[in-house]
């Protein structure tokens, strides 16, 4: 294997293990642990009058039953609002176990611990909770009307109201020769990772320490949260994310009630306790996203140029705001995409409903913003009779305008400044890839055969790699292998491969010699987490920094051993050598393994390797101490990366769909993606991220919705009725890349994790509108929905 693996489409190093069933997911851990199960609210809004556990007490194997009254100290306090914001004037969270009131179906009320999960569920079934019913608030309209309140002390059901603007939008609209109004609607979906949440906790009374395994996207922060909640010193708590079967955002929220309760019970009982979320629990006890109503008022000139854009968003935040208002902030700030209206104003109302809380799901508000902007672009094109790509092109920020300040404050509290990108070039590539100009002929041909087809386009810009920082640690072992660690977690993205490529390339070793650990606080304690398409940007650059320091140290030590100037040395395939001396004359090279031995002088020769490093193992320069002043033993180092602001990737999707004139079935004939996430570490992994994102975009556009009835019951809380697309529903995805490096980080990379999902609803709405000849304003859309729309138009 060659040393230079950075940029190569190598196969994922983690796959053989996972494909052979050797993964260690949460439920694979702790087979002897006690099992927890929860009594969850069957009602959307109710006061808890009484909890009667009498009948459960007789269940064999029952160990403990806990309600809120049992939660001592800080464990009983309300869960945190993780990301406060000055406009979040009425943030509310629940408790680990409900106290007095429940605000959505699925809220945990009683925790049962038993010798196994079967018995724990038996006991749950025998616990009787008496409720005083309160009328539920379901749906954004009901929340906005505020005839009923979710929380008595939150007027209007409004958790946050925020306005951002640039320029005088009122004046721009008043002066615009053309003004359009659009009312848009996006329904709820959810992350739905194949592995739900799960927690295993072990209290070591002798060591007074707690070890927690949790299926999380933020192990260091779970650790800090648990230390605070359980009132333990931070250094007595270890949190490890084992193999995680997908996150897509829902596992960035923490601490989940169960993340507090399982360790709390483990300490109290002095026994291992485990809880593995089941599918139904995940649907009602985790988080959803996407649901928004939007109103757009846009003014534009006769060429289609945006003069004023005024957007109002009513965002459904569900029963609580544990993750603050990140989602609507992202919607309203990322909505502009690659465009530059003269004036922009965005206002949102974040509203409570008696439904599962809303927290980020891959895309995190961007799909909704993209939908608003791109539906608007199509509306302008239709109004003026212009080609949809022409209208977009005329509004693009040009490459020579970079960096471009959108004049807004982004989700990280920093200015929204695009760092780089070439939007006209991206569009050109896409038009070529999909055959935009040739589509009219295809449409005519199809029409002659009685078929109905349409083409759609959607563009987006995505802020990725938000701070504040990540770190990395790299060490060369005495056998020449390399171990590296970063604190952020991985959920299947292929981080261990991409990070190994970064480290291997910086260090000059074969990539299969590098083993990377993520998300283990025992290995790296400082981290933020995996979200916002930030892992490659943040930990990639941090690990590169650490590897460079290790490389410098290795060259210095090798220089002493070879009696050469370190500046004349290079590392190739794990060997330090004089630059340009392959094969190496005697005395002109030294294996990195030997350098690692030299880096750590030993007293004790526990094996042959170690013997070489002892004080009597080789020639010694008595004029110097064994470890040079200012140095530390070992060939290892730590690096951090903290960006001044986010870096902005972009992409454009085009889709060709066919709608059946008789059955209203919607078929995607082609799906094309052009994507620019800066310098690619591993094109194969980026491609996979795009494919996964598109699959979720197709799901959100054509299949997935959360169907709540008026009582706040989720009617489709299973994979039978929540229609996550199968591989048979996902089209072949044709991709092309641009690589516009980010000037903000040494590796020039931008995030890629969320990109594929962002324009899904926008591009498919565009294509279906084109096929049908009328504008689609509500997504997702099913064949039954399309049939109803056709009927409504025919009867007008």
């Amino acid at each position: 294997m060659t040393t230079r693996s950075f940029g190569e489409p190598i196969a994922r190093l983690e796959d053989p293990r996972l494909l052979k069933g050797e993964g260690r997911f949460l439920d694979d851990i702790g087979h002897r642990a006690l099992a927890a199960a929860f009594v969850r609210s069957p009602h959307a809004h109710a006061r808890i009058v009484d909890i009667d556990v009498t009948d459960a007490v007789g269940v064999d194997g029952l160990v403990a039953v806990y309600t809120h009254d049992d939660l001592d100290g800080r464990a009983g306090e309300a869960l945190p609002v993780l990301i406060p914001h000055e406009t979040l004037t009425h943030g509310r969270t629940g408790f680990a176990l409900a106290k007095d009131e429940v605000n959505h179906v699925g809220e945990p009320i009683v925790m049962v611990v038993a010798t196994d999960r079967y018995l724990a569920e038996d006991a749950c079934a025998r616990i009787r909770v008496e409720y005083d019913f309160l009328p539920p608030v379901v749906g954004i309209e009901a929340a906005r009307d505020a005839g009923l309140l979710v929380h008595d002390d939150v007027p209007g059901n409004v958790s946050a109201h925020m306005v951002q603007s640039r320029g005088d939008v009122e004046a721009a609209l008043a002066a615009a020769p053309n003004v359009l109004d659009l009312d848009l609607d996006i329904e709820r979906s959810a992350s739905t990772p194949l592995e739900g949440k799960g927690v295993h906790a072990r209290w070591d009374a002798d060591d007074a320490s707690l070890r927690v395994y949790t299926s999380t996207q933020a192990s260091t922060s779970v650790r800090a949260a648990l230390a605070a909640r359980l009132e333990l010193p931070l250094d007595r708590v270890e949190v490890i994310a084992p193999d995680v079967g997908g996150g897509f955002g829902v596992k960035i929220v923490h601490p989940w009630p169960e993340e507090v309760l399982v360790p709390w019970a483990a300490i109290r009982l002095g026994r291992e306790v485990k809880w593995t979320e089941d599918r139904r629990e995940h649907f009602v006890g985790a988080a959803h996203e996407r649901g928004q109503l939007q109103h757009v008022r846009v003014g534009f000139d006769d060429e289609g140029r945006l003069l004023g854009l005024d957007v109002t968003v009513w965002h459904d935040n569900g029963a609580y705001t544990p993750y603050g208002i990140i989602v609507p902030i992202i919607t309203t700030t990322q909505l502009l995409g690659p465009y530059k209206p003269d004036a922009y104003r965005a206002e949102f109302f974040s509203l409570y409903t008696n439904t599962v809380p809303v927290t980020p799901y891959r895309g995190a508000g961007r799909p909704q913003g993209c939908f608003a902007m791109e539906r608007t672009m199509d509306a302008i094109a239709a109004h003026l009779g212009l080609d949809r790509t022409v209208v977009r092109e005329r509004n693009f920020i040009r490459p020579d305008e970079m960096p471009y300040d959108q004049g807004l404050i982004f989700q990280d509290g920093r200015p929204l400044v695009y760092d780089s990108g070439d939007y006209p070039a991206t569009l050109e590539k896409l038009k070529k890839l999909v055959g935009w100009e040739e589509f009219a002929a295809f449409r005519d041909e199809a029409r002659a055969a009685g078929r109905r087809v349409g083409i759609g386009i959607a563009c987006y810009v995505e802020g990725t790699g938000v701070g504040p920082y990540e770190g990395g640690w790299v060490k060369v072992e005495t056998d020449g292998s390399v171990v590296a660690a970063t604190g952020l977690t991985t959920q299947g993205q292929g981080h261990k491969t991409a990070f190994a490529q970064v480290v291997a390339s910086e260090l000059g070793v074969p990539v299969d010699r590098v083993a990377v650990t993520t998300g283990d606080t025992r290995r790296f304690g400082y981290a933020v987490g995996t979200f916002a398409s930030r892992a490659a940007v943040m930990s990639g650059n941090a690990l590169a920094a650490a590897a460079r320091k290790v490389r410098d140290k290795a060259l210095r030590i090798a220089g002493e051993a070879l009696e050469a100037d370190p500046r004349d040395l290079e590392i190739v395939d794990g060997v330090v050598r004089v630059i340009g001396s392959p094969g190496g004359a005697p005395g002109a090279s030294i294996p990195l393994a030997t350098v690692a031995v030299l880096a750590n002088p030993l007293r004790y020769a526990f094996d042959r390797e170690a013997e070489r490093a002892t004080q009597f193992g080789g020639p010694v320069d008595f004029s110097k101490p064994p470890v040079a002043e200012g140095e530390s033993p070992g060939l290892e180092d730590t690096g951090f990366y903290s960006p001044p602001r986010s870096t902005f990737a972009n992409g454009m999707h085009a889709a060709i769909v066919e709608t059946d004139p008789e059955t209203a079935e919607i078929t995607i004939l082609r799906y094309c993606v052009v994507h620019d996430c800066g310098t690619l570490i591993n094109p194969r992994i980026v491609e996979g991220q795009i494919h996964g994102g598109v699959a979720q975009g197709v799901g959100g556009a054509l299949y997935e919705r959360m169907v709540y009835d008026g009582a706040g019951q989720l009617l489709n809380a299973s994979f039978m009725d929540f229609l996550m697309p199968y591989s048979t529903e996902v089209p072949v995805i044709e991709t092309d890349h641009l690589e516009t490096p980010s000037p903000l980080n040494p590796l020039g990379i931008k995030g890629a994790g969320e990109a594929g999902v962002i324009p899904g609803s926008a591009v498919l709405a565009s294509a279906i509108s084109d096929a049908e000849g009328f504008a689609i304003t509500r997504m997702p859309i099913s064949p039954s929905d399309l049939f109803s729309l056709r009927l409504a138009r025919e009867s007008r």
Partner: protein
Amino acid sequence: MKPAGFTYHRPATVDDAVAVLAEVSPAGKVLAGGQSLVPLLNMRLAEPEHVVDINRLSELAYVRADGDAVRVGALARHADVERDAAAYAVLPLLRETLGYVAHPTIRNRGTTVGSIAHADPAGELTAVLALLGGTVTLRRAGGERTVAAADFFTGPMSTCADAGELVTSATFPVPEGRTGAVWTEVARRHGDYAVCGTGVVVTLDDDLRVAGARAAYVSMGPEPVLLDLTDAVAGAPFDDADWPAAGRLAAGRLEPDDDIHATAAYRTRLAEVLTARALRAAAGRPSVVA
């Protein structure tokens, strides 16, 4: 999602199985492929006191086809029926319909008779059995009876089988005369229960004119709905019949419900369109017009 406790029985013969069922009646539930029962148990939507596992009854693991019928034993997996060459030769409709039943992994475990005994109104094989005028054979301690499909299905998820009875086989008759049969459906995703599905049989006379047109539907009522649509197309040449008229006739006689995936009006439209498409395809089958 763990089931409540139950007593597990694993008889080795059909006689033992019906003896156990009689003994525990009415608290027993038969486990064959488990593709419906196990999720119901896990979600505690069913909490039988006794589960009688028939997977050891190898005497029921058969697919037998002759010129008159395809007979399927209670332990034949969907995949066994789907792949059976003799069954395909006499009744291609079975294989073609099974292609719409869930996914290969489910068809490898799920049994055809189990799906009929479960009587889900969305189950394709229930409709095919009704369409062909098939029968079901039930064994109980000390006896056996054979029931016509029309009498077997009594409502959604309910049949005339007694608690002590085991459905041992289903018999799909081969349609007589110059006939063609087709299954078609629209589902939200590949392999999902149909939003609307229909199987049809068209019979032609020796002049290749339509003599009969029947259709059976899933997801259009509480049990498989069987319609005779001959009136709309009787006597018409096979390649020039007014199939849309037959579709309209069907649509006018079906009364589906709304659910979270589709409105009743949409289902009715699908029935109209799919009926016409399926009838046209069935009448045009080369084997029919040859």
